[in-house]
């Protein structure tokens, strides 16, 4: 699960984490993985739903010291 790119969205409030994720995702090839770091708790539900709607695969998410980390594979 090697991410090709890491997006640092820490400290940004909704909707910026998703706006930036979408932008970063546009630059990836299908099958590549984007790693996202955010401190916005709402991102858990929103990134999950956004990934699903966009045909991407949310591989996993975890929390480390209040930072939420997501790995999303472009579909």
């Amino acid at each position, binding site marked *: 699960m090697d991410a090709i790119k890491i997006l640092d969205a820490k400290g940004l409030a909704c909707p910026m984490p998703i706006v930036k994720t979408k932008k970063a995702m546009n630059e990836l090839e299908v099958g590549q993985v984007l790693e996202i770091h955010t401190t916005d708790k709402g991102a858990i*539900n*929103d990134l999950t*739903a956004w990934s699903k709607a966009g045909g991407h695969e949310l591989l996993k998410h975890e929390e480390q010291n209040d930072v939420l980390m997501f790995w999303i594979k472009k579909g």
Partner: protein
Amino acid sequence: MTVNSMTTQEITKKVMNQEELFILDVRNESDFHDWKIEGKNFDYLNVPYFDLLDGVEEIMDKIPAGKEVLVVCAKEGSSIMIAEMLSDEGRTVSYLKGGMKAWSEHLEPIKVGDLKDGGAIYQFVRIGKGCLSYMVVSNGEAAIIDSTRMTDVYLEFAKSIDVNVTHVFDTHLHADHISGGRVIANKTNATYWLPPKDATEVIFDYKPLESGSNVTIGNTTINIHALYSPGHTIGSTSFVVDEKFLLSGDILFIDSIGRPDLAGMAEDWVKDLRESLYERYKDLSMDLIVLPAHFMIIDELNEDGSVSEKLGTLFERNHGLNIEDENEFRKLVSENLPPQPNAYQEIRQTNMGIITPDDEKQREMEIGPNRCAVR
């Protein structure tokens, strides 16, 4: 076109006046289905903001041009973005200032009755979450019952009507919201009362509220008579105030009754709940005005936005008070229960003083409806 901000207070007015409003809720679908702004004449469209990042053209025909439009999200950021996009399309719209977080915290004080000696009782309607708390006022003194964590609202209200808070009560250990009781008691040097059976694990000092305790507010006798009425929790206590008002806590609501499972003891407490409702409450005067600690649906609001009903009327109309068969009653309150309130275990621990989450965390824990009832 312009983007306006609408405050929780303005929306509360619309709910209470049963005005029309078109709500474009841009949170994700699960959050919307879980909990939204309820109004008798409100219409809704739910499209997550992340589906609208490329533009709002696709939903324009679903947003009525002749209606007032409010865009809603969790904290306000996304709703401002979408409201601006709608504005670029030529619409005048508003966004909810502070988002659903602010909606969850809004308290509307409403006077619900006069006391014999000239005092009054106020209900604080937490319109977004369905929590009800109370202030009993008499002769310069005030008691607060089941306060929320927005303690400043009560303290400022007390100041505005020139009364000192002398007693603070919780009818039970709450599982759906964080009590402000201890904070208020600390700030005002008031006595903090808790039912001891709910407080076996609390780590702070309190005064045990036993059945039959009479507490006097003000110089004249406004008795708050405690009535042990277990079932929602093992300690649940009701109050009869001024021989006129029954503060029923989470035992009896207008259109539903308390659920016995939030402390993990559904089966054990079913009997207590039934006894409290069908025996202890039945022995009370049917003229008492029931003031519960929650409402679940907007239909439970009276015309002035308050929530109250005569005990006799509830014994006629509330389904939960009219189940003859004990087994059927047990099934209703212990099977197929609605989901539990968000973070209810952590909320209980916070109310016991075992954990002390920061403000932001507390706000998040309380997201969603109260879910303390069964219908």
